[in-house]
């Protein structure tokens, strides 16, 4: 096992331990059945009806991943392009700034009227929220590529496609990963919200349903599942970054 990977596992292990400890302290302080400590919650999580929990987790994972991939596939190329073309930036930059602060969550009713209460509206809402986060970060990364680097590669005979492939995309990749991590957090929060508002599937529904039936164990099993989902997705992003940006891990 390479040192990078060893550290990777060690760090995740420490993080889990730290959060569990913090949780226990909070549970002691709260002394309320609504906030059980980690041990009863984990017991409940392990004892929960797995096929049901797994089904909800997979649906949520599918929604988050689909919307993240859709946003990356659209916002990254657009962001790179705007970032490298100042005329386009002066045209589309203000549009992005105008739309970015609109609270997309407030648009949920509109989206539901337009797309129904199925998968479409949930994915669309997450997409709207994280699209701009990725767009603005990618654009800023593309803007600050050193001009000397571009000139050097142009002097080697690179056309604009080669410039994107050899310089602009790899130079922005680390920031695209940062944007993905931030967006993943937003995506999971927005997903939770949209799942509690409508539908009968996903971890948001599962958690709220547990709360409404006053089954706090079920509720916490859902909360644990959603945090594990986040943890796994973040870990996947980290692994992907080590693989795609090896020059940053030397």
């Amino acid at each position, binding site marked *: 096992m390479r040192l990078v990977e060893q550290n990777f596992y060690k760090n995740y292990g420490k993080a889990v331990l730290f959060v569990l400890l913090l949780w226990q302290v909070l549970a002691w302080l709260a002394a309320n059945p609504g906030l059980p400590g980690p041990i009863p919650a984990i017991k409940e999580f392990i004892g929960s009806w797995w096929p049901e929990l797994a089904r909800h987790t997979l649906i949520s994972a599918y929604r988050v991943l689909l919307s993240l991939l859709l946003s990356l596939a659209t916002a990254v190329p657009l962001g790179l392009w705007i970032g490298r073309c100042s005329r386009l930036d002066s045209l589309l930059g203000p549009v992005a700034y105008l739309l970015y602060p609109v609270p997309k969550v407030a648009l949920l009713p509109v989206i539901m009227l337009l797309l129904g209460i199925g998968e479409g509206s949930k994915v669309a809402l997450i997409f709207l929220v994280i699209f701009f986060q990725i767009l603005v970060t990618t654009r800023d990364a593309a803007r600050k590529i*050193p001009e*000397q*680097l571009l*000139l*050097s*590669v*142009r*002097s*080697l*005979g*690179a056309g604009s496609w*080669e410039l994107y492939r*050899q*310089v602009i995309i*790899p*130079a922005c*990749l680390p920031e695209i990963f940062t944007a993905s991590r931030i967006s993943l957090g937003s995506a999971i929060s927005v997903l939770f919200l949209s799942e509690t508002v409508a539908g009968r599937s996903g971890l948001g529904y599962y958690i709220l349903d547990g709360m409404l039936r006053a089954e706090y164990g079920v509720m916490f099993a859902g909360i644990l599942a959603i945090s594990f989902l986040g943890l796994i997705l973040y870990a996947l992003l980290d692994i992907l970054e080590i693989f795609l*940006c090896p*020059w940053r891990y*030397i």
Partner: protein
Amino acid sequence: MVQVEGVSYSYRNGLKVVKALVDIDFKLKKGDTCAIIGPSGCGKTTLLYLMAGLLKPEKGRVLIEGKVLSGPRDGTAVILQDYGLLPWKTVLANAALGLEIRGVAWRQREEIVRPLLAKLGLQGMEDRYPSQLSGGQKQRVAIARALALRQDLLLMDEPFSALDALTREELQDTLVKIQAEQQLTIIMVTHNIEEAVYLGKQIVVMGGMPGRVRAILPNPGAGRLGYRSRQEFHHYCSRVRGALGQIDYEAG
């Protein structure tokens, strides 16, 4: 080989148009070396960009091998101030970048680049990334990348200015050897008098704002190993220093 004829250039700084170069004229024969020297801000880097085809002259023209330059030329290698190595590529991939852009297959790229890197003293470092190299090693990779394309004209912007004195002299000697072997035509921009005299058979002294050519000094002894310790060398250094000093006097 290279003819710069009446070239002027201005750039925009916000709304202002700033003149950078006025009526630059000089010529260079094939296989010769030329050092362009001048104080900072005299437009010498701009002149190099114009000869590289990265900028277009506002007036006048640049001819290379009799052809008017309209963009980057295939036979011209350019090494810019901070070496222009891509941080995400290994030494091998950086040196092979020009070949990759020209569509040369991976195997062939390796066959061309590996011996070049070895010759420049970078054997065993092929898989490192630029951040793992010293300044001198980075400069060597940049030279390897330029040589890999077997080009006939090499343009360098302050190639050795960021290096310590020992490394600088070592690399200057490397460049002299390569130049003699391959009959490269080299134009370099520098603010270092000793470097200009050691490497430039023709020294173009620039000055002023906007930049103009103040003097063109022939320096036939340049491009020989060991020139540094000759009497002549010091004589030419004083002459260049004199030509530069005059500018300061006029400007002041």
